[in-house]
């Protein structure tokens, strides 16, 4: 999905190159578009770029919903 962003937690950062924890996966992300990002922040990540900082509660709730969606998709056999 081209315009879908997902929340991830920034766990390492060197200049604008970061590593984010995305649902248990470590992914390389760029913080070029969110220069105020710091380790420990929840970020909305789109195609390898952080596009917004999130408050932790919103991020956790979005994750909870995504998990529900994933469970429903798995149950239905259709991703």
């Amino acid at each position, binding site marked *: *999905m*081209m*315009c*879908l*962003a997902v929340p991830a937690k920034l766990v390492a950062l060197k200049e604008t190159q970061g590593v984010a924890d995305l649902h248990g996966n470590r*992914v*390389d*992300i*760029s913080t*070029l*578009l*969110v*220069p105020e990002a710091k380790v420990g922040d929840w970020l*909305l990540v*789109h*195609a*390898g*770029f952080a*596009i*917004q900082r*999130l*408050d932790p*509660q*919103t991020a956790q*709730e*979005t994750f*909870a*919903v995504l998990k529900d969606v994933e469970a429903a998709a798995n149950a239905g056999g*259709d991703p």
Partner: protein
Amino acid sequence: MNVSSIRIDQVLQRLHSAAGAIGRAVSFMEVCGTHTVAAFRSGLHSLMPANVRLLSGPGCPVCVTSQGDIDQLIAAGSLPNVTLCTYGDMLRVTGANGSLEQARSRGADVRVVYSTLDAVRFAADNPQRQVVFAAVGFETTAPASAAAVLEAAHLNVKNFTVLVSHKLIIPAMDALLSSGLVKVDGFLLPGHVSIIIGADAYRPAVKQYGLSCVIAGFEDQHIAAGLARLTEMARDGVRQLENQYYPAVTDAGNRHAQQVISQVFEPGDVTWRGLGTIPGSGLVLRPQYAAFDAAQRFGLPVQEVPEPPGCRCGEVILGHCTPAECKLFGTACTPIRAIGPCMVSSEGTCQAWFKYKRTASANLQAAHVQRPPAQRPATAGQGVDA
């Protein structure tokens, strides 16, 4: 907005209550492929009141890309010594000479990347290859394309170029409304595009056209809540912009992203499927970054060609017809062997309709056939098919 603070049953109750009080049919349009898919997948359409319709507008990046741009992209991917990097969505879009996927099966080097920076890295690591990135999408993807150009310039990667067909959402809405092509009571606006451009970007159009607009997120509750609010606004005659995706979407948007976009790109006249050429509705590279223009480097002109015979994608993305009204839908055109881009894209209205709504439509048609017209309830079918 906090997801857990929205209860879907309460939202639907509000939606039905407001719809019942309106006493006429109302229609709203979303302009985001992710909204399209989420609304179909969640079954929201079948839970909506009979007099409320949610149309899918020109919001799926693949679907609004013109046939000429698609042909240009596939031509780029088929060049010898070129590695074409793309988001996965574009892989199966069909042009005059087949799709990128088919070009790859003939030996073309076509790679799906997660991030634009992966394409730059690949170019830096493979200086003997020419690497072209397919820069497609709305304002959500444009900053990533711009960042890739800046990164390539910074690292002096000379074998990296971009083939740009970025689109801008507000000029498209403006074109839809000013031409009278689309008559809707309001718009459900896309959350992630809005994170970049900011809520204020919509205000001139909202004022000019007297629109009811709600910026909404992507969870089922968000979309249902946005629709409920739009219906309440229609009931109460409220014409304004409301931001239900706060605090992710701010009034000003992401200024860093906007700055990166405008550093590399400037607005240009681009062609949309179903809409034709709209002034200032796309992004083109600024002259100082012309060296990164794949169309110039490889001499790839855009030749606008007719859409595939019988394909009604252009009408589908304007909400002028439903996928089921297209003769190709579900017969010649399926997700496995797609003819039009709305069936190719995972965000396309036709593919969403095929996956989540086809059975309901078929059952409904069967019911209509079996039932004499005189006995059919006046509202039959609107809840599912409308």
